[in-house]
């Protein structure tokens, strides 16, 4: 197909777009129906574990130090930080040396804990309720939820991506206002390394130097 023909075909297609879109949407819906069953246990996991973290952040009986320590422990249990660490490196996850990986893992963990704490604290959430879930595969599920904030007002919608790991669910990404955190971090980090001509050390140094939320 020449470029001109293809363009004409596309324009024709656009003219018929509403109809075609309708068809495409229903086809998608079908494939999702076979694949996308709800996962009640993933929903339960989100409700229980996210609630636990929100309560922890809101607990005024703890000192800041105690809260940080408890938060880090909880995140270590409910999030799959090793998998996230590889994901955010994108294509550079293949070329990183073992020594760099060790450095990056430590730097990213500290960075990620700060980011998660800052983002979750912003909700000032009091309760979380799962509103649905869709399994992409049996071991890859997105749970949608609403978080009610202490300040009142309309609840915030958040989605959680869960992967099964050794028979247990772990959170690998969270979506707020349409934006996935880990996907955004991946583009941030890959762009940083690209701009440094592929030098992963530049990113490691930046993370070590303390890119991340300012201490409260």
């Amino acid at each position, binding site marked *: 197909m020449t*470029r001109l023909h*293809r363009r004409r075909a*596309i*324009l024709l297609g*656009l003219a018929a*777009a*509403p109809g*075609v*879109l309708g068809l*495409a*949407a229903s086809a*998608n*819906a079908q*494939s*999702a129906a076979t694949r*996308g069953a*709800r996962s009640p246990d993933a929903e339960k996991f989100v409700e229980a574990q996210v609630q636990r973290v929100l309560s922890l952040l809101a607990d005024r009986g703890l000192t800041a130090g105690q809260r940080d320590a408890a938060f880090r422990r909880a995140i270590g249990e409910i999030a799959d930080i090793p*998998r996230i660490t*590889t994901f955010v490196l*994108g*294509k550079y996850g*293949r070329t990183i040396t073992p020594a760099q990986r060790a450095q990056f893992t430590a730097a990213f963990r500290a960075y990620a804990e700060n980011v998660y704490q*800052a983002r979750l604290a*912003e909700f000032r959430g009091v309760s979380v309720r799962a*509103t*649905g879930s*869709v399994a*992409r595969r049996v071991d*890859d599920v*997105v749970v*949608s939820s*609403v978080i009610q904030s202490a300040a009142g007002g*309309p609840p*915030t*919608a958040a*989605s959680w*991506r869960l992967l099964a790991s050794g028979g247990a669910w772990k959170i*690998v*990404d969270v979506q707020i*206002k*349409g*934006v*996935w955190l880990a*996907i*955004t*971090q*991946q*583009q*941030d*980090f*890959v*762009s*940083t390394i690209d*701009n440094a001509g592929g030098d992963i050390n530049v*990113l490691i140094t*930046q993370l070590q130097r303390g*890119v*991340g*939320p*300012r201490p409260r």
Partner: protein
Amino acid sequence: MAPVILALGLFATIGMGSAAWTETSEEPAPVIAAAPEAPAPKDPWRRFNRRSYAFNGFLDRVLVRPVTRAYMRITPSPLRRGLGNVVSNLREPSTVVNDVLQGHPKRAVKATARLLVNSTVGVLGLFDVATHAGLEKHRSDFGQTLGRYGAGPGPYLYLPLVGPLNLRDGVGGVVDVLTDPVSLATGGLGSDFGVGRLGVTALDGRAGADSALEALANDSADPYAATRAAYVQLRDATVRESTGEIETLPDFDLPPEGAPEGSQTPPAAEDAAPGLTVADPPPPALPASPEGYL
């Protein structure tokens, strides 16, 4: 005038959408097709964009942020919320227009009901009583309308003073401004009302984005890339809100080293899958405008 511009906008966008499509289909498959990487946004003008980004950052530091912070200090938060509600209410007619264009009569009725309730019971929009009555707010814009009918986003664009855009949503934004019913009825920027409305809208948007901007600037190794990633996802989510389409997510794990190419996500299946719906997602709480978000 407006219909002509609208038609021009449609043409530009469709042409650009098809150009973008042709470009993608002719690109050779990347070597690491199966690596779990979200597709990089099209950013052919990144040199210009990065310069605009730096310029806006400078302008924000020396002018916009101080003014916004002062506004936030001077106005008690109930007043600020009220003013925000007023400008948001003035945006409802444009949402109704786009809901109709998108073929979503229920959403159009909802936005109309919100406008009527908030303009009367809500004292000219100061109080968002509609939300409490179960009529939740949503926003529709012309970029979304174009996306609803298949126009691709086109290249990413970061403009001085304006912020992140893509071609489709830039065109959409212009059309929204030119066709805004409230603006047409009140004489647009030629009137004191129009100028005041613009000022409050800008301040309200910037104040609402304060913590998000702070987070982007502080949390990212490359804030430009993080902003772009967030904007692209936000606009995709906005269009999906209208089409009801399924979100495609990258696989999370790298395939094991040496695995046959495409062992995880066969490239051929990319169009139809990997299907991922957020079942009946509550409409995401979208910020008043993309400019307001970032």
